[in-house]
């Protein structure tokens, strides 16, 4: 939970950052990789703005070469932030991008409606001949690299940002503390609920829940699993609501934060640059 963070601000001789990083990093789903690279030190909002601009640019570029260059560039940038960061981003990239790439190349290469020029023609036993078309493959690569830009940009921003820093930075930029709370709480809830769901599943199986029955009774079992999960969580929820209320959750007025998130000149420069680059690409696409 959000400990005494609201109590006081400013000058303490405790290293707040180290304290927070060590406090609850492990049970959260948020895959934060600590480090001290430039990417880590940037303001979280800067990272989000830059990611957003890069993603929009990737989706505006007409051929796959642009997004491909962005993908490579971004991955190199992310890799400079440390081996752990690169591994985290790489894992998702392979797990999601792999099936996506395969599916894209197969489906679009074979069946893309604008297919005309045959690129490769393979001899296949049953259906005689399988032709991959140039147009389809190019389209597949365009979509694939746009999506890899999306993945690397967002993951790079996420993995190098501690969730608490992110929420404080967002609140300093005027995002409601309620939105910040629900985001943090959701990330903390999910592992807890997963554990709870597993024990409910075990308990119901011990009472004879049949996971190999017909579909209708399995859907009914779903309600039997979900209801206790929800009600259990709701009971804890009421306590949470009281705890939040007693800490002035709905109070208005200025707040101070224990955690200090720097917003440097470099941050502002990057945000401006991202915005200008996006505008430049939009203008270029509209004029051509």
């Amino acid at each position: 939970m959000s400990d005494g963070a609201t109590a006081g601000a400013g000058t303490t001789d405790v290293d707040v950052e180290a304290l927070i990083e060590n406090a609850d990093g492990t049970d959260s789903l948020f895959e934060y990789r600590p480090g001290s690279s430039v990417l880590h030190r940037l303001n979280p909002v800067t990272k989000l703005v830059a990611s957003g601009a890069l993603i929009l640019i990737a989706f505006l570029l007409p051929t796959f070469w642009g997004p491909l260059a962005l993908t490579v560039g971004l991955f190199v940038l992310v890799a400079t932030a440390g081996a752990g960061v690169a591994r985290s981003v790489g894992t998702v990239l392979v797990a999601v991008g792999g099936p996506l790439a395969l599916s894209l190349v197969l489906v679009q290469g074979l069946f893309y409606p604008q297919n005309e020029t045959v690129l490769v023609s393979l001899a296949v036993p049953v259906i005689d001949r399988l032709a991959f078309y140039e147009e389809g493959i190019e389209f597949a690569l365009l979509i694939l690299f746009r999506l890899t830009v999306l993945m690397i940009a967002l993951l790079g921003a996420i993995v190098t940002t501690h969730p608490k820093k992110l929420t404080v930075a967002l609140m300093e930029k005027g995002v409601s503390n309620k939105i910040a709370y629900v985001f943090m709480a959701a990330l903390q809830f999910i592992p807890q609920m997963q554990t709870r769901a597993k024990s409910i599943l075990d308990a119901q199986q011990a009472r004879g829940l049949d996971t190999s029955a017909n579909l209708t009774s399995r859907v009914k079992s779903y309600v039997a699993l979900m209801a206790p999960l929800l009600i259990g969580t709701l009971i804890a929820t009421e306590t949470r609501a009281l705890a939040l209320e007693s800490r002035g959750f709905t109070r208005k007025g200025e707040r101070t934060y224990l955690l200090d998130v720097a917003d440097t000149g470099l941050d502002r420069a990057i945000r401006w640059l991202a915005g200008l680059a996006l505008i430049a690409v939009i203008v270029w696409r509209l004029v051509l």
Partner: protein
Amino acid sequence: MAGESQTMTDRLGGGFTTLAWVLIPVAVGINVVGGALTNALRIPLFLDVIGTLLLAILAGPLVAAVGGILTNVVLSVVRSPTMLPFALTQAAIALVAGYLAMRGWFIIREKRDYLKLAGVAIAVSATSVLVSWPILVWLFGGITGTAPDVVVAAFLASGFSTELAVLGSQLVMEPVDKIASVVIAYFIAKSVPERYRPSFGQRALARDR
């Protein structure tokens, strides 16, 4: 009914009580964890909007929309950023289901009232298809690297355009999933003890007589 005298904006926006704010992460959790339970029960559906629908029934359209968007923000953090664009689908489903909840479509007193639930299911399916369709076509070119790709491929192979192939696959896949989700969400919402229901939910479900 108690809510009749309130204005529209009151009923829409008045839902943001502390209790509602605390319900949002719970709903997000249910959306995300629900997927794990469907795997355990080997139900061949996504069922990833049940939490959003629950919020729509219990706390109204706007709270549910926040929960829906947050679900995909969280999913893009913990699973894959490619889930992010579908936050729009979640939000649209939340608004439609929440509006219908406000209009009393989840109040079931006799057998034929279950037709209302069917109506909600159709509205939710239609919303889901209509909002996901352009996202799938424009951002993904129809292919997402998941199971429905097979259906899209089948449509493309039989000569349909990308737009129609995606629409076709959505119409094949979505209704079953959303009908099941609406029914399940209704029964779960009914099982929530009244003292844990926010006031919106008490009106939306009304008491059995």
